[in-house]
C-alpha cells in the first residue's frame, strides 16, 4: 500500500502543490504543508484502496493539515450573494475571459470560492469527490461552485471595466 500512496503522491505532486498554494497563498507555506501532508499520507494505517479515491484522499489530507495547522476552518464567504435572474439578459463580454485576467481574478476571490474552482476546474474532481474532500453535501458543492464562478466573472468584468476607466482617464488627461 505504501507503494501505491507514494506513486499517487508522485503523480499528483504538482497538482497537490497547486492546491496547497491556493489554500495558503504562499509558496513556502505551501511547500511545508505539502511535506507534512505527504508524511501523514505515508503513515496512514487505512488509506482507500481505489486509485481514484486515493487521489481525492490525498487532497483531503492536504486540506485537513492546513486546517489543523491554522486551527480554523476555511471561512465561507458571506458577501457572495451575487446572483443572476433568469430574466436578466446575459451581457458578459467573453473577450475579457483570458488566462491572465482569470489568474488575477482568482487571486481576488474569497478563499472558499477560490478553493472550489481549483478543485473542479484545475484538479478535475467530480462534484461527489469535492463533496467528500470538503465534507459538505453535494447540493452545497453545486451552489458554492456556481456562486464562485459568478463571483469570478464579476471580478474579471470589474477589472476590465476599471482598466477601461483608467484608459479613458489617461486619454482625457492627454487631451486636456
Amino acid at each position, binding site marked *: 500500500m505504501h507503494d501505491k500512496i507514494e506513486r499517487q*503522491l508522485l503523480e499528483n505532486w504538482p497538482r497537490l502543490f497547486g492546491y496547497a498554494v491556493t489554500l495558503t497563498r504562499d509558496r513556502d507555506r505551501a511547500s511545508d504543508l*505539502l*511535506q507534512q501532508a*505527504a*508524511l501523514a499520507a505515508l503513515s496512514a494505517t487505512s488509506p482507500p484502496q481505489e486509485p481514484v479515491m486515493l487521489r481525492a484522499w490525498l487532497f483531503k489530507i492536504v486540506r485537513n493539515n492546513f486546517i489543523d495547522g491554522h486551527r480554523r476552518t476555511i471561512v465561507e464567504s458571506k458577501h457572495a450573494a451575487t446572483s443572476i435572474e*433568469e430574466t436578466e439578459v446575459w451581457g458578459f463580454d467573453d473577450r475579457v475571459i*483570458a488566462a491572465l485576467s482569470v489568474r488575477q481574478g482568482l487571486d481576488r476571490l474569497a478563499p472558499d470560492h477560490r478553493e472550489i474552482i481549483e478543485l473542479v476546474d484545475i*484538479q478535475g474532481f467530480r462534484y461527489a469527490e469535492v463533496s467528500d474532500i470538503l465534507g459538505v453535501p453535494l447540493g452545497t458543492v453545486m451552489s458554492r461552485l456556481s456562486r464562485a464562478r459568478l463571483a*469570478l*466573472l464579476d471580478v474579471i468584468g470589474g477589472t476590465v471595466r476599471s482598466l477601461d476607466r483608467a484608459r479613458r482617464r489617461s486619454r482625457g488627461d492627454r487631451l486636456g
Partner: protein
Amino acid sequence: MAIGWDKLNAYVDGELDAQGNAEVAGALALDPDLAARVASLARLKACVAEAGKSEMPPPLRTPARSVPPRRSFAWAGVAGAAIVVLAVALMSFALLRPAPVPPAPARVLELSGLSAAAAIYDRWITGNDGGGDHQRPLDWQPMGQPPDLGEARLRLVFRDATEPRDRQAVFYGYVGPNGCRLGLWIGRGEHGGRTSPPQAVHLGELAGYVWTAEWLEYAVVARGMDPERLASLAAIIERIIERDMKLDRDVRLALQNAARTGAACS
C-alpha cells in the same frame, strides 16, 4: 422550462444525467441568451484550467525504504535462524504493544529532478519549447559534454537549461531512429552530497529513474519506452557519468544491447 444557473454550471461540468443533459440541450437550441451563458462558462472553465498550470513544485521528500543487504550463501542458514528468533520476538512485542508505530525516516530522497525533467520533456515532445536557441553555449555544463548514446542509436537533438528557474540544471534530449525520445536532466543537488542509486519513478505516463551522486542530481525520463530498455539505459548512463564519459568496450556493448531490448516505443 427555465434552466437555472446552478444547472448550467453542472451541464458545463458534465455532471448532469442523460435527462438533464437533454433538457439543457433542448433549451439551448431555443434560447440564444442561455447559449451565451454556457459559452461564457465553458470559456471560463478552460481559462481557469490554463491559469492553473503554475509553478514548479518543491521536491517530494519521501522516507526512503532500506534495501535488504546482500547475503552470502554461507550465511543463509544463520540468517534464517535469526529471522525465526526475530519473528518470535516481534510477535511478543506486538502483543504488548497493539498500535504499531511507523519507522522514522532513515534518509530523504530528493525527487525535484523528476518534476523539472517532466516539465521540459513535455515541452520538447509537444514542440512547445518557446522557440529557444538550443545550440547556444550553456552557462552551466556539469560534465563538459553530455553522454554519447550513439551506440544505442540515440542522437542528441535538444538541450534546455530553463528548469527549474532557481537552480543550475540542464536537460538533454535524445531521439532514436524510430522516434523514441529519452531525456536526461542534471541539476545541482539539494541532497547534501549524499549518493543514492537509481530508483524507478513514474509521473503520469512518464517513466524514469532518478539518482544522486556527488552534489548532482540526475533524472532519465521517457514516455512509451519499453521498461526494460529504459532501465538498461538509465543504468548505462549512470555508469558513463561515473566514468567521466568514457565509453569502454563493455559500455558500448551494453548500449548496443539496450537498443535491441524490448518492444519499439509506443
